[in-house]
C-alpha cells in the first residue's frame, strides 16, 4: 500500500518554465520521480531538464499517449483555476496546487469540480508531498541532497498546513530514528483540497504508517473536523499535534502567517483547537523536539494490543 504516490506514479508540471517550477522539476527528477511532460502555453517544443514542454494538457496526452496520474500546478494565481480545470478535464486525478494567493471562490470551484470528477486536490499554497525513498511531487524538502537529510523512510505520517514545518517535523522524526511514511504539505489557505480528516483514511489503509503527526495553526475548522473524525472512526493511528501561533489568541482580528490563519470565530483560536484535539485523545506537543518521544509513548502503549514499536 502507499499513499497517493508510488514507484509507478507519473505526473506533469503545469507552468513548468517558471523560475520555481524549473527548480522543482530538477529536484523531483533527481529524487527519482517520473515527470512525463510540462505545460506552458506558447512554449511547445522546449525542454526543461530534458522534460518536453507542450502548449496544453490535451496536447501532452496525445503526444505521450498517456494520461498522467498527477499534475503539479505552479502558475500565477489569475491562471490557476483554468490550469486545474484543464488537468481535471483531461483525466488527471491528483492535482497538487503550489500557487498561493488564489481567491477563495476560485479554490471552491476547483475543489467542487474535483469532487464531481473523482479527482483529488492537494493545496493550494503547499509544497506537495513525498514518499521517502520513492518519489516526491513538488518542492517539498528542496534539492534531492537536502531531502535525504530530512526524509528517511519510516513509520510516521506527516500532515502540515505549513510547507516549511513539514520538513522541520520530518527532519526531527528522521533524526530520532522514527522516519516518515508519507509527508503531505496540505496547504495554508482557508479552503484546501484535502484536509487532515479527508486524508486520514489513506493513512489508515497504509501498512507503513503507524502514527500521525500534524502541524496546525489558528483559523478554520480543520482541527475540529479531525477530532470528530478520530472519535467517530476509532482510528488505529495515534496522533501527535503541534499548534503554532498561540500568541495570536492575544491579538484578535490580526492575521499572521498563512491566509488560512484568519480567525473567524471563537472555535478557530489556538486554545479552543488544543482543547478539542486533546478531548479526542490527540497529544498536543509544546515544542517540536517533544514530538518523537510523544510518538514513541503512544506507539509503546499500543504495542501490547498488536501495534508495532518502531525504534
Amino acid at each position, binding site marked *: 500500500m502507499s499513499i497517493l504516490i508510488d514507484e509507478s506514479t507519473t505526473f506533469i508540471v503545469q507552468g513548468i518554465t517558471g523560475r520555481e517550477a524549473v*527548480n522543482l522539476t530538477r529536484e523531483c527528477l533527481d529524487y527519482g520521480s517520473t515527470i512525463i511532460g510540462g505545460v506552458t502555453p506558447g512554449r511547445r517544443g522546449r525542454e526543461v531538464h530534458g522534460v518536453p514542454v507542450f502548449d496544453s494538457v490535451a496536447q501532452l496526452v496525445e503526444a505521450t499517449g498517456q494520461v498522467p496520474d498527477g499534475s503539479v500546478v505552479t502558475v500565477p494565481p489569475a491562471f490557476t483555476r483554468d490550469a486545474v480545470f484543464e488537468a481535471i478535464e483531461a483525466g488527471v486525478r491528483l492535482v497538487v496546487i503550489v500557487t498561493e494567493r488564489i*481567491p477563495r471562490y476560485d479554490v471552491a470551484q476547483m475543489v467542487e469540480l474535483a469532487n464531481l470528477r473523482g479527482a483529488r486536490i492537494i493545496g493550494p499554497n503547499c*509544497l506537495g508531498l513525498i514518499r521517502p525513498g520513492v518519489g516526491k511531487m513538488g518542492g517539498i524538502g528542496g534539492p534531492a541532497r537536502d531531502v535525504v537529510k530530512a526524509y528517511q523512510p519510516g513509520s510516521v505520517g506527516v500532515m502540515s498546513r505549513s510547507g516549511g514545518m513539514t520538513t522541520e517535523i520530518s527532519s526531527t522524526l528522521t533524526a530520532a530514528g522514527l522516519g516518515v511514511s508519507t509527508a503531505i504539505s496540505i496547504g495554508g489557505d482557508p479552503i484546501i483540497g484535502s484536509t487532515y480528516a479527508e486524508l486520514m483514511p489513506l493513512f489508515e489503509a497504509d501498512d507503513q504508517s503507524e502514527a500521525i503527526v500534524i502541524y496546525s495553526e489558528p483559523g478554520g475548522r480543520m482541527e475540529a473536523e479531525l477530532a470528530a473524525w478520530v472519535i467517530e472512526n476509532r482510528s488505529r493511528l495515534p496522533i501527535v499535534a503541534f499548534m503554532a501561533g498561540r*500568541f495570536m489568541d492575544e*491579538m484578535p482580528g490580526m492575521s*499572521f502567517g498563512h491566509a488560512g490563519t484568519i480567525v*473567524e470565530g471563537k472555535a478557530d483560536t489556538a486554545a479552543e483547537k488544543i482543547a478539542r484535539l486533546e478531548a479526542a485523545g490527540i497529544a498536543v506537543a509544546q515544542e*517540536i*523536539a517533544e514530538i518523537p518521544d510523544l510518538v514513541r509513548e503512544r506507539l509503546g502503549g499500543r504495542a501490547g494490543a498488536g501495534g508495532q514499536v518502531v525504534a
Partner: protein
Amino acid sequence: MRFFEYESRRILERERIPITQSGHAETPEEARKIAEDVGGPVVIKSQVLAGGRMKAGGVKFADTPEECEAHARDILALEINGQVPRGVLVAAKAQIAHEYYAGVIYDGVRKLPTFVFSDMGGIDIEEVAETHPDHIGRGHFSTVLPPMDFRAKDAIAQTGLTGRELTRLTPILSALARLFATYDMTLAEINPLVKLEDGSFVAVDAHMEMENEARPRQKALLTELGVGEDETREAREATPFEIEGERIDSVDHRGVAGNVTEFDGNLGLVIGAGGGSLTLFDAVRHHGGNPANYCEIGGNPSVSKAANLTKLVLQKPGVEKIAVMMSTVSNTRVDIVARGVIKACVELGFDPAEKIAVFRIPGAWEEEGFKILDRYGLEYADRSVSMHEAARIAVEKVSGGSDGAAPLRGEEPGAEKPPTERLSGADEVLEG
C-alpha cells in the same frame, strides 16, 4: 477587507437589492442636506469598521434636518474603539413590520458558500443560532453550476416561511449569493432585512467583507467605491515601521521579506517562513523574551531584500540584538540569508557576531552558509538545535528576558474589535 456600511449599501444597489434611502456625509451640513432630501425621520450612523456602534453612542435618530445636523456633529467627533469615523450615514427611518436576517458565508468544512437565513433578524445571528436553532435556515450552493433561486428558497423555507414572504425574499437572498460570488466576498450580510408595513422588503443595514487575495481583480469596484490601494482595513492601522516593511517587500519581487508587525520588545526577529515564524514567535515568548517585531522571510529573497528587512529591524528603537531563525528551509537559501543579515550589520557599523544573538537556519545550501557565518564569528545552529532551543539562546542574550513574557503590546493597543467575526450580527435594533 471590510467595507463601511455606506460602501456595502452601494454594493447592494449594484445587485438591485432594495435599501432604505440614504446618503454619506462628511460634515454636519451635508448630513442635514441628506435629511432634507429624505424628508422624514432619519437615522444617523457612525461609519466605523467596528461592531457595537449603538452601545457606543454612534447611532441616533432625528425627526428634523436640524436635529440630524446636531446628532451628526456629535457622532463625527466620537471615536469608537479608537477609530475616527469615516463620516456618517444618514438613512430614512423604516416603518418596520418584521425583521429578518440574510447572509452568505463560506463553510470551510464543506468548502462551499452557504446561505444563512433567519426570521429573527436585527439581533446577533450567533445568539439566534444558539437559542433558536429552528429559526435558522441554511443551504450550500454550487460554485460550478449556474446560480439557482431554489437554493435560496430552500434555505428560507426551513424557517417555516411561506406565502408572499417566501416568494419575495427568495430573489433578495439569491441576489446576495450572486453578489458574494461576483465580488469575491467572504461575508455578505443584511441585518436586518426588513418587511415594511406595506409588505415590501428593504435592507436597513449591510456588512460586507472582500477577500484580500481578490483585490487585484476587483479593482473596478474598489475604484468606484474610492477604496485606496494602501487601505489595509486591518484591526489596527499599520505603523510607519510596518509600512516600511511592506515597502521593502513590494519593491523587490524576489522572495518574501515582510509581513512585519511591530511590538515593543528588545529582541529583533528576522524569522521565517509562514509556519516557522508562528512557531518561533511562540518559542521566544515561551522563554520569556520580548519580541520587537514579527516578520516572515521565505521564498528565497535576494540578499539586498533580506538586508533591508534586517536593517529596518536593527534600527528600531529599543532593539538590542536580533535573532535570525527559520524552520528547515527548502527553497530559501541559508547562504543568501546569511549574506543579507551580515551585510545589514556591517553597513550599519555593527559587529555581526555581537548583534546577531543566534542564527538558526538549516537546510538548502547550509554548508555554504555556515562558511560565511564562521568567517564573521557568528553563533549559529544546525538542525540538531531545535527552533525552541534557538529561541531560548537568543532570549538569554538580551536583557530582561527571564521572568515570563510580558503581555503583547503593539503600537496602538486600542482597536481590539475583530473586523472579521463570523456572522457578526446587527449593530442595532431599529424600532418600528
